[in-house]
């Protein structure tokens, strides 16, 4: 037997026992089978639902199910799918053809420009460094496998993986932190104005630094998550992806689906990925206590702010007579400076009670919000209770009423 046959033999015989994986998969299949039979019963009613002949009670149940089940929504859309009819060609005037070609060329150049700039202006050097490792972190390439240590540089598109019972944190060039769960695999790509963490499998939690001009993305096989400064988790596997937001706002693009904007406490899954509680989704992190406390604190602050009294309805205006007579757009709104002061007091109070909140409120996490509040306040203190803006037809020329 030569080395090749010995190697093949070793692959054939060296198989670990299936162990607890069998029970885990069985439990998931049972869950899917339950959902499958439920979906089947609803799908049988789709035709009647569509024609409006379903009993009221059942119609409400189908309504509710369609709201919560993406697969059935797709199935229902298929039932409803409109037939595509080929329309006869219409004669097009020559000048329109020329105009269309010109527009296409302009758009083409516009679209090509960013990619050219990306090539020219892409920064050189490592994309990230290893900030901490517990267990094993390896870099894998066609040349082989190399164990990484703290401080190691991670190059463009270099694939890194955490081992079993291991986790690691890598720091991107802009200061964003990416925490990797055990058995996770990712690479980092950077262009002129974007950084992309490509998550092939496993889970990460990203603490995104404030993005000055560019953007930070996490890409999985079926989803693209874009952020500006926030904390969120992404998991990727064969069944799809799951995005959970701890703080801030992220935008999720999924092939063939509408763009979703997620906020604190929101979660989105793609394909057949299981949903889970957001708190559970970050429980593996070494900072899980901080993230969970932040989730609870921000929810509590949000509830307190929602209870703040809004300015009452206004039925008269002392400013409307001062609006230019040729105004085409007039908007009026209350001065919210007092309410913002109250909201800031609530944030300050919570920060005194909670270390996680204090860190978020004092550091970069709340930077954008504090900046916006300060901006509104700096103008608002010079205004009265009523604020009016007007857009006069003859821009800049004011016609005071006589």
């Amino acid at each position: 037997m030569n080395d090749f046959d010995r190697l093949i033999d070793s692959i054939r015989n060296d198989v670990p026992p299936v162990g607890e994986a069998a029970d885990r998969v069985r439990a998931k299949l049972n869950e899917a089978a339950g959902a499958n039979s439920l979906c089947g019963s609803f799908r049988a009613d789709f035709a009647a639902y569509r024609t409006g002949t379903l009993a009221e009670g059942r119609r409400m149940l189908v309504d509710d199910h369609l709201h919560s089940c993406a697969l059935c929504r797709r199935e229902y859309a298929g039932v409803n799918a409109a037939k595509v009819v080929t329309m006869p060609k219409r004669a097009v005037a020559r000048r329109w053809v020329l105009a269309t070609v010109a527009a296409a060329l302009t758009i083409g150049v516009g679209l090509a420009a960013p990619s050219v700039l990306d090539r020219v202006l892409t920064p050189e050097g490592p994309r990230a460094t290893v900030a901490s490792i517990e267990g094993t972190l390896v870099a894998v390439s066609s040349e082989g496998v190399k164990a990484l240590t703290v401080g190691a540089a991670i190059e463009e598109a270099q694939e890194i993986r955490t081992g079993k019972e291991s986790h690691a944190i890598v720091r991107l060039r802009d200061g964003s932190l990416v925490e990797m769960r055990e058995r996770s695999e990712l690479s980092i790509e950077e262009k002129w104005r974007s950084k992309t963490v490509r998550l092939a499998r496993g889970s990460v939690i990203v603490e995104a630094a404030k993005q000055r001009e560019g953007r930070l993305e996490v890409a999985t096989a079926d989803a693209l998550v874009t952020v500006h400064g926030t904390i969120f988790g992404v998991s990727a596997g064969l069944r799809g992806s799951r995005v959970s937001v701890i703080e801030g706002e992220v935008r999720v693009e999924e092939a063939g689906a509408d763009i979703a904007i997620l906020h604190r406490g929101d979660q989105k899954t793609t394909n057949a990925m299981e949903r889970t509680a957001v708190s559970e989704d970050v429980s593996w992190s070494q900072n899980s206590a901080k993230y969970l406390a932040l989730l609870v604190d921000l929810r509590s602050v949000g509830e307190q702010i929602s209870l703040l009294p809004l300015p009452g309805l206004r039925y008269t205006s002392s400013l409307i007579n001062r609006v230019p007579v040729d105004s085409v757009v007039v908007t009026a709104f209350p001065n919210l400076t007092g309410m913002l002061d109250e909201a800031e007091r609530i944030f300050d109070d919570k920060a005194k009670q909670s270390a996680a909140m204090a860190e978020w409120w004092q550091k970069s996490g709340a930077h954008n919000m504090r900046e916006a509040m300060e901006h509104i306040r700096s103008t608002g203190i010079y205004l009265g209770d009523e604020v009016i803006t007007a857009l006069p037809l003859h821009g800049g020329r004011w016609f005071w009423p006589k």
Partner: protein
Amino acid sequence: MLQMAEATSQMTSMMPRALDDLYAEYHGTVFAAAYRVTGSAADAEDVLHTVFLRLLKQGEAAQLNNPEGYLRRAAVNAALDVVRMRRGADVDLDRMPSRGRGVMDQLQNDDLKRQIRTALAELPERTAEVFVLRHFEGHKNPEIARMLGISQIAVAVTLHRARKKLQDTLRKAGVQQ
């Protein structure tokens, strides 16, 4: 751990009976076939789930003439897809010691297997499937010919080409043939 296993086995199954029986009999076969191709227990678990979930959705478990052959092929093809989706090569992180000096030794030992698996995934789909069924799963040439609906000669030629390609890969890595 024992309690968890007992709880799972005592749980009322929601799966159709035929699928439940297939799972009980062949889950180990599917897992092992997937592991041999991917070299990763986590990926093999995902393949196990994917293969049976597909059967559940299609509702065809009761109509299979040769369930073992069907499941082996499904596992091999799903596992090959997993390896093709990888951007680089694989290393079995589940079985790798998480700490200590053994890490590098095992990385080096697994490296050749990793190269074989990567090269296998780069072969044409049918060629890779034939090689895996013959050499990893132990099917004879006539069985493979029946399973895939091709002639025995075609199986033999495909195997010869696959073997040559994989041996070339190893030769480049400095392994004596």
